[in-house]
């Protein structure tokens, strides 16, 4: 290996973070940026007293270090802010060595901690481009985070305004509150069917919420199958459903629909190897009986009919009759 005479000034320009070490491991010269790492004169200090060697670990004395030529050295500044550095050692023919240092990934923090500017890096160093990239990335991430927060807010708001029950895909209470006043104002006949699941709570309690959710989706499928597309089928509470039939006031047909729904709900629903058994109770109110015809009144009437179904032993449908239900329940 032939030695090349290196001018110190030249090296300061090419590698401003280099240290020139004597054969005893003392710093004889520091590049301009390397000199900024320690707030006292670096020349004359022992290299291993300035820097702790993280890797390789087996270095006790400077002579050990001299055996690690051309391998990556991982160092840490012994004085605050204990910056991590990368190093490369090259021995010199005269006995000493040159160690070139780099901030590596610590660069963004180091520029602030050591008060560095563009003149502290070699003109060919990519440090400035890296700092540009870090800053550009941070600005873009900040903008992205703001957008995500706003979108999240908008989503929550949209959900609150939605007319759909996300679990079953049926309509929800908001939809009912939107549809009923329009039907009443429209003046045509219609009917309201209120449905509560029987024994649903025990499915939820004994089989868990996944089973409960599955049952609710199956019931939703039955309700959809037994109604027309133009009817409103909504889930208004945990195991409560409300069906609105526009232009349908025929008692016989309503009773038939209700009976079919109940008999289908009684069919055990398979879930993870076993079955869930439920039933349904229904109360029906028809607009031409409701007096006066208001939203609250027709819902109240269907509720009374539903209560009568439950009271009579569940699993059945009851048509609201003002002569019976008002007095019987005392509402």
């Amino acid at each position: 290996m032939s030695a090349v005479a290196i001018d110190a000034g030249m090296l300061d320009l090419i590698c401003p973070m280099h240290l020139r070490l004597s054969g005893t491991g003392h710093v004889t010269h520091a590049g301009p940026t390397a000199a900024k790492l320690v707030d006292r004169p670096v020349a004359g200090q022992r290299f291993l007293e300035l820097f702790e060697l993280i890797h390789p670990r087996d270095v006790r004395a400077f002579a050990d270090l001299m055996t690690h030529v051309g391998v990556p050295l991982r160092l840490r500044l012994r004085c605050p802010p204990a910056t991590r550095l990368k190093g490369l050692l090259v021995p010199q023919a005269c006995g000493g060595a040159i160690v070139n240092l780099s901030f590596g990934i610590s660069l963004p923090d180091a520029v602030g901690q050591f008060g560095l500017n563009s003149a502290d890096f070699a003109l060919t160093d990519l440090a400035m481009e890296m700092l540009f990239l870090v800053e550009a990335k941070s600005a873009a991430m900040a903008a992205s985070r703001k957008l995500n927060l706003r979108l999240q807010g908008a989503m929550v708001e949209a959900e609150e305004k939605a007319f759909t029950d996300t679990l079953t895909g049926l309509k929800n209470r908001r939809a009912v509150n939107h549809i009923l006043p329009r039907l009443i104002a429209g003046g045509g006949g219609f009917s309201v069917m209120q449905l509560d699941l029987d024994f649903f709570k025990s499915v939820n309690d004994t089989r868990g919420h996944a089973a409960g959710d599955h049952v609710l989706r199956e019931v939703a499928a039955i309700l959809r199958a037994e109604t027309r597309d133009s009817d409103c089928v909504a889930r208004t509470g945990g195991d409560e459903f409300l069906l609105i039939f526009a232009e349908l006031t025929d008692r016989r047909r309503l009773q038939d629909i209700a009976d079919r729904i109940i008999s289908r709900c009684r069919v055990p629903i398979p879930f993870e190897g076993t079955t869930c058994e439920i039933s349904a109770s229904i109360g029906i109110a028809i607009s031409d009986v409701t007096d006066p015809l208001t939203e609250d009144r027709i819902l109240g009437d269907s509720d009374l009919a539903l209560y009568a179904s439950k009271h009579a032993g569940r699993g059945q449908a009851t048509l609201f009759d003002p002569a019976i239900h008002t007095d019987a329940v005392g509402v």
Partner: protein
Amino acid sequence: MHGLVNRSIQGFVQDNFGRARWVEIAHLAGLEFVEFETMLHYPDRMTLQVIDAITRTFGTPYDTVLEDVGTYLVANPKVQAVRRLLRFGGADFVEFLHSLDELPERARLAVDDLDPPRLELREHSCNMFSLRVDSRYPGCGHVLVGMLRAMADDYGTLVLLEHMGRVQRSELIDITVIETAFADGRAFDLGARAVG
């Protein structure tokens, strides 16, 4: 047009003339919203409608509005990011001018779906330059004049800038550096991070 551009124009109106004025301009421009999102894209016509609404509201010529937007981008303390990213281009104003050739690449490092203008610097003498601006968007050169003016100020350099007009897709800006150490300029602390 990229949301970043639209948002900058919104910021220009809002920070200089108040929120109410911006809402008024957004309405006048026929936008169905008042908030541009920096990370989204919008149809080009929206940007033109907004600039048009600004010129009508303030009675300022189109070119002047664009130049003011450019100045705002660099000089407004609320949007430090652009100034800081531009300052990475060079340690002094002339070095910064030479870095403009690579501005599109730098801009794409920051925001990869931005469609920045292509810039080409010609050096006629040590203090006379011309900058060619190639962009799909007419008037882009005026935004650059505003930005260059603010950057010169930032470096403490006295310059003369003149927009020489547009030929096909190119606009030409004449730059004369009169004095490089005219004022102290603003400090550029590498270690500080841009906010907002």
